[in-house]
């Protein structure tokens, strides 16, 4: 059995969620590009990690496929290490 047991509504809902996540990732990427400081970029990339986790979750549910779930663990860990190391070494004039 593939897909949610909600008839065709499952596919529509997955598409809606994908569209919302696409819009969210565009917003976050714009902030990551324009900055203006390195900490703004770190915050934006943290938010991008959240969007990615939500996207993998939606995919796992829509496809009834658990094979992408370990990626969620990796994303949680990598996002933490990345933002902490950048925040630790953020200098006064770094842009």
């Amino acid at each position, binding site marked *: 059995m593939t897909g949610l047991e*909600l008839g065709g509504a499952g596919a529509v809902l997955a598409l809606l969620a994908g569209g919302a996540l696409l819009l969210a990732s565009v917003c*976050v990427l714009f902030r990551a590009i324009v900055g203006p400081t390195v900490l703004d970029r770190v*915050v934006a990339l943290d938010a991008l990690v959240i969007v990615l986790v939500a996207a993998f979750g939606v995919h796992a549910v829509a496809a009834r496929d658990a094979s992408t779930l370990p990626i969620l663990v990796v994303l949680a860990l990598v996002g933490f290490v990345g933002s902490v190391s950048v925040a630790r070494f953020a200098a*006064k004039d770094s842009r």
Partner: protein
Amino acid sequence: MSAAEVAARVADVLAVVCLGLGVALALVAALGVLRLPDVLTRLHAAAKPQALGIVLVAVGVALALRTPVVVGVVVLVVVLQLVTAPVAAHMIGRAAYRTGKVRQDLLLVDELSQLEGRTPPEGGLPDGCTVAGTPEPGAQGSDLR
């Protein structure tokens, strides 16, 4: 429809609701990161789904897939995220304050500079510098309320 089928249908609907809330929270956070004016406010917007959004998505996935392995992985993700996200947000906020990237005109209260017993850093402290100044006795906010 047997009871098991009803339970499966209810779990599916709950999963969709949880995932929808999580996705909506991620979208709101992204709009906040895009629109809010400085590092602390953007951090405030981005830190909400790092806890609640992840929990909602994880509950949705667990309710939809309903196998022990999936539940285990999802619990691992939630625990990791709940432990690490506040630490990361705190470090980013502290780095923003110490490097002078907080807009003082947007602050209502600056208890940190009161605790440090000094005026807010104009251009921020030098890189890697920690604030060692002891609060003056009787200084407002020095009792760590």
